[in-house]
């Protein structure tokens, strides 16, 4: 249960979620799962797909530029590429 819950959270990678969805579909299609288990798996699969879709729908661009501080630490600042001025 704890593992399944964690799948919906931010920390879990997109790839891990896709992998779990794959597992679920295979289990469902194998026909071995009883009706109760099938319904639970379907619900879990639907949640995971929803989370993946949310990731894909994120439109916010996050671009930063690196530089080094005087103390030797790395710092990230927002960065916008220049528009095409001359060709």
């Amino acid at each position, binding site marked *: 249960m704890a593992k399944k819950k964690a799948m919906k959270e931010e920390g879990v*990678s*997109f*790839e891990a979620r*896709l992998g779990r*969805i*794959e597992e*679920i*579909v295979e289990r*469902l*299609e194998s026909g071995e799962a009883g*009706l109760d288990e*099938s*319904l639970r*798996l*379907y619900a879990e*699969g*639907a949640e995971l*797909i929803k989370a*993946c*879709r949310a*990731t*894909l*729908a*994120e*439109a*916010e*661009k*996050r*671009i*930063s*530029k*690196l*530089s*080094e501080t005087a103390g030797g630490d*790395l710092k*990230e600042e927002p*960065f916008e*590429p*220049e528009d*095409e001025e001359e060709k």
Partner: protein
Amino acid sequence: MPPFDASLIPEPQDEGPETVWELTRRIQATLEDGFPQVWVVGEISNYKRHTSGHVFFTLKDERASLRCIIWKSTAERLRHEIRDGLEVEAKGRLSVFEKAGNYQLYVSSVKPRGVGALEVAFRRLKEKLEKEGLFDPARKRALPRFPRRVGIVTSPTGAAVRDIIHVLARRWPAVEIVLAPALVQGPGAAAEIVRGIRWLNRLRSIDVIIIGRGGGSLEDLWPFNEESVARAVYASDVPVVSAVGHETDFSISDFVADVRAPTPSAAAEIVVPDAREVLAALRAQDRRMARHVQHRLERLGDRLTLAARSRFFVHPEELALARAQELEDLAGRLRAAARESAAERRLRLERAAAHLAEHAPRIRWQAAQGAIRMALYRLRAAGRTLLVHHWRARVDGFAQRLADLDPDRVLGRGYSRTVLERTGATLTRAADARPGDTLRTHLAEGALASRVEEAGKQRMSNVEPVFVPSGLRRATQGTAKDEAKNAKAQRRKDAAGPPQRTLFE
């Protein structure tokens, strides 16, 4: 002035002077024969590219100059940019431009003077690093399928960074981009590229790095051929994609990197997947799952419907009847057996048969109840859908109807059941009883034993016959007085009779 070789000159056909054309042609022949392949170094001046596509310039040194021409097709294929002031090496053949009366070099190839040295250096470094194993395919790592953070080492200005960011954002909007700015040509560029790779590794959050720049000359691209950059790429823990110049440019960093991309935009396409494709795949998975579960539910629904249609759900009373049938067969066989044996055994068997027959309704009832319970259990086991509620309702309805059929209920309303002890059968016709027969009457509570005095075909009174009047006159309509009398007589009789134990417990 070199000595003039008269043997080269074709013989004039006739006396007198030749035309300018004829003379020029002879000069041309001389030049072409004498200078078939030329390799010359000089400085470019008067560089001009015609609208026709042909290129014209003059190669000169301090004391002489040579006109040059590059045909359009050759000019397009030039690998190096040339311009006024540049010192270049040119190869080609000499010929005469008759109209102007001058000679020209038809250039087949030209390149800046220093490039030769660069190319040699390139080859040498490539061999050295290859021998050391920096290009080993086995050490190249696979790129992550869904990188969360992409690092770029390139100039913060210019087309390359713009193109990379544009393509990344288009394909996988959720990706985070971190730029490590660096010069990408000239002195100091190699050091900044190395620094950029190291910084991105230090962050520990970068999944893949792109290093690169747009197109340019060999000198422009040179920083990506430096040994320091090659070693930094090799040492990077994060996989590196090298995207330097145009598709035909190959840099040392391309060979060391985990993946070479022909252009910066191509690098962005390699590094992230297309969200649209992934979305389509997800949709397909979703459909597969839903289809499957839907199919399962439908099949279970079908099984439920089939089970519900079985005869015993539709007519549960038939189940009871079937059981009753079996019981009566059994009772009959017992009776038959009883008739053949010794008297005592016969009596015992008869009693047993009677017992069975008396209890048959209850057993019938219990069997029916059992069937209902089994049916309900099977319903539950078959699945939880709306269908279940519906069938449960129907079955409950039947249960109710069966309950109504329960013989005991009927008794509760005042009816009684009389059994003829002699045969063991329930009495429905008075004619079946003979005077002297013992009767057992089952009431809602308890039973009575009585003896027949008189048995007639018709009903004795309008009220339900609870007892057979003992010897009293037949009453066609019962009066209250008569009823009281009968009741009194019956009570006397009961009191007088031997105590009877009820078989009905």
